[in-house]
């Protein structure tokens, strides 16, 4: 009887076609297995994982009365679940299965020594049988799944995911750090849309008319969705908020969100702007990169949603002790709220979607490409702000030094990317393309401006992008030259710039004059990414973005059950891809939650609380945060939260009192296996 060291073991040897069968004498192996004590049946099959193989296995189990199974086949990573499902269907507890890997660990690596390989396979099966005899049934843990989702990040990915989930009927909490939604797409980056032109024909695009789906302003693209979001009854929008603490597990994540004080009552504010007129404080608007001013009570930019004002308390006179109430006095609804202290919000959700987006690289090294030293060297983000027709310069490109329209503009690509001196050297994917779009946009407003783009390699992938590139060069006359600029020098007086570079295709070093230089900066992980990843126990890729569970097959899942990632949080990408991933993540979360109950698949660990001394070493060592400390009587004892435990065994080893045991990997079972391995046949 299984569980008392007396299980009746059934051994199934798979030939895996020629993969195993060509090297290991499976019939010999089967015969050997059948002679072992406790084995009630042994059989071989060509493809155990096939429908036929599985059926025969079930029939054999029922015929022989086996109640613990050893499968000698390929790696458990491939088919452990298949066989577990199968024996469960045959009426045996699904965890009473041991897979002996006689393919990857035997026939594949010893393919030129078939005799020895067969002997090794016999050892492996013997070990498995000895272990299987001491198996006891394990019940997987079921977790109730809360039907609410947290979306971290209110950029284009976050809002798409939130919207789709809300439409499916889930309650969604959307947490956004900034005062407005829309992320980078809405604030500074105009969106990337491709022109599907008739090949060879020159198309005129007009921003005002927006006749074709080309280079539309981002506000127009994202605003309709944002309005739907604001009005959706199932979406709880928390702006100026950040996730501070996360505990729990899939189906039951306890999240603490801290909302910073807005000093304006959102419920009362209608966004009329009466308050900002009498405000006596004027400062540079950081959302416009200092290109325009704002008051202490302000909205970040005109198209911002939610259209609610906020007070920058650091600049406000009240923070200096003055009793100014100009904004409150002029507000018809009495919205300004000086006593606002912000708040803590506790959420309990079933799944989390991370859509925290990106920030852009800030070139800060002194002298490098002249940024910060030369006024007329700006980043692409600042340029985009200028190109926004509703922005600080009304869509006109100007030189910051004298606010005149430049005559010659240079773009420098790969700033912050493909540079192993500063990070992993990844390519930021979208910069080549956004430069083409920016160049076209500049030429639309200022056709007489000369534009030169300094690149190393051009990446123009995706639907319609190669055509877009050709338009940029042919129709708009933008010059492309290959060479990474070595120096950007400033001319005294004019504050013009001289770029010295080797133009590699000319094999000559050139020094060329420009009025304005734009650095095409890369996309980097946003501030706080490391901390958030730690909170959620997510892995980061070498480039600093969140690592997905599987690069090809699981692009929006993470290593933690119930947590998904989408958009630029996973790596640089453009808007269409971010939207696609957002919808995928929403679907994954929905697939999880709609089942209402989730069963763990891992054989997890458990604590023998009599032996536990509450030393907390298991809590320190566990990478998944599964052990928790609980007060039991006078002292503290550890308990493993099964939903979080992955069965890795780290705590088992760490425990100095040997109080933690791993199911199906107990000391006794492992010792039996070892003894079996060392036996002389």
């Amino acid at each position: 009887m299984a569980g008392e060291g007396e299980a009746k073991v059934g051994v199934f040897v798979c030939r895996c076609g020629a993969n195993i069968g060509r090297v290991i004498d499976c019939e010999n192996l089967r015969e050997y297995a059948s002679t072992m004590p406790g084995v009630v049946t042994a059989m071989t099959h060509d493809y155990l994982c096939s429908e036929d193989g599985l059926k025969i296995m079930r029939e054999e189990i029922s015929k022989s009365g086996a109640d613990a199974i050893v499968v000698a086949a390929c790696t458990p990573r491939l088919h452990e679940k298949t066989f577990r499902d199968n024996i469960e269907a045959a009426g045996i507890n699904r965890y009473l299965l041991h897979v002996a890997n006689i393919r990857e660990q035997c026939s594949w690596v010893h393919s030129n020594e078939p005799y020895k390989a067969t002997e090794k396979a016999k050892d492996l099966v013997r070990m498995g049988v000895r272990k299987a005899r001491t198996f006891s049934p394990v019940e997987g843990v079921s977790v109730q799944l809360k039907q609410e989702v947290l979306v971290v990040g209110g950029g284009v990915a976050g809002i798409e995911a939130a919207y789709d989930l809300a439409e499916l009927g889930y309650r969604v909490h959307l947490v956004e750090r900034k005062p407005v939604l829309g992320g980078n797409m809405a604030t500074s980056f105009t969106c990337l849309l491709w022109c599907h032109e008739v090949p060879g024909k020159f198309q005129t695009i007009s921003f005002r008319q927006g006749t074709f789906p080309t280079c539309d302003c981002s506000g127009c693209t994202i605003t309709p969705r944002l309005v739907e979001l604001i009005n959706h009854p199932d979406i709880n929008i928390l702006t100026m908020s950040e996730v501070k603490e996360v505990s729990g597990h899939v189906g039951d994540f306890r999240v603490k969100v801290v909302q910073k004080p807005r000093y304006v009552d959102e419920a009362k504010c209608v966004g009329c702007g009466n308050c900002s007129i009498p405000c006596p404080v004027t400062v540079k608007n950081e959302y416009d990169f200092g290109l325009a001013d704002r008051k202490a009570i302000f909205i970040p930019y005109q198209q911002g949603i939610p259209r609610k004002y906020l007070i920058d308390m650091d600049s406000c006179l009240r923070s200096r002790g003055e009793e100014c109430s100009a904004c409150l006095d002029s507000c018809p609804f009495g919205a300004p709220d000086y006593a606002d202290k912000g708040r803590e919000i506790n959420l309990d959700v079933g799944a989390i979607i991370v859509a925290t987006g990106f920030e852009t690289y800030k070139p800060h090294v002194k002298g490098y490409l002249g940024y910060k030293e030369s006024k007329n060297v700006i980043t692409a983000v600042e340029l985009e702000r200028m190109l926004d027709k509703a922005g600080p310069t009304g869509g006109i490109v100007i030189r910051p030094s004298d606010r005149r329209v430049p005559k010659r503009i240079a773009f420098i690509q790969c700033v912050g990317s493909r540079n192993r001196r500063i990070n992993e050297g990844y390519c930021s994917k979208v910069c080549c393309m956004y430069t083409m779009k920016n160049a076209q946009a500049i030429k639309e407003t200022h056709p007489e401006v000369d534009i030169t783009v300094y690149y190393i390699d051009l990446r123009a992938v995706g639907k319609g992008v190669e055509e877009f590139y050709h338009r940029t060069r042919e129709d708009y006359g933008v010059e492309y030259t290959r060479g990474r600029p070595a120096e950007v020098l400033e001319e005294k007086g004019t504050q013009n710039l001289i770029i010295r570079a080797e133009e590699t295709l000319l094999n000559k070093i050139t020094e060329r004059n420009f009025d304005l230089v734009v650095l095409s900066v890369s996309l980097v992980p946003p501030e706080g990414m490391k901390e958030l990843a730690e909170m959620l126990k997510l892995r980061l890729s070498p480039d600093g973005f969140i690592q997905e569970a599987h690069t090809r097959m699981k692009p929006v899942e993470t290593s933690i059950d119930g947590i998904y990632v989408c958009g630029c949080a996973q790596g640089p990408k453009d808007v269409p891809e971010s939207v696609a991933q957002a919808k995928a993540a929403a679907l994954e979360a929905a697939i999880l939650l709609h089942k209402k109950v989730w069963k763990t698949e891992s054989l997890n660990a458990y604590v023998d609380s009599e032996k536990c001394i509450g030393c907390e070493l298991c809590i320190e060592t566990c990478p998944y945060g599964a052990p928790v400390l609980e007060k039991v009587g006078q002292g503290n004892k550890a308990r493993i939260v099964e939903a979080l435990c992955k069965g890795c065994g780290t705590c088992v080893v760490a425990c100095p009192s040997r109080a933690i045991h791993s199911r199906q990997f107990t000391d006794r079972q492992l010792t039996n296996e070892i003894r079996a391995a060392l036996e002389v046949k």
Partner: protein
Amino acid sequence: MLEEPPIVDEECDRGFIKKITEFGGGDVQVCMQCGNCTGVCPVSMKTENKVRNIIKMCQMGLKERVLSTPWVCATCYRCFEHCPSGMNPAELIVALRHIVVREVGPPPFVVETSHNVADLGQSMKLSANIMEMRKEIGLPAEPFDKLFRDKAVNDIRTIMRATGFDKLIGIKLGD
């Protein structure tokens, strides 16, 4: 103007890259040919020899072409400071120099300076003018005494013999 004939496979020495690595020149395949090194190189700015071009020729294995240029590098290391791929073109040039010395021969100033070090322990000879100057400013006419010449110079010569430097450069060390 007559164009040179096209470069053909026979000119490409596939083992050149490995040889460069053996002499400490690093992995030339790392270079993405961005041209930043050339833009900051003081020598590239004044001559036809562009660093990036040299690296490209090394990548292709055009050994004969490359070996006519390598001495002209001031080892100022600006290339290394700016390279986004983490390459060190100056070290590459040093490796090329090792190859030139072994396959073509050392340039005259290397031979001369090596002789000076082997004979005097210093890179420059001591002229009569300098000896006068030394006396005028209160130093002994000769900077090094017999003890130095006997011990230090002897040490240097022993080292050069032990490493085979004398044969490499063609210095007669005698005994």
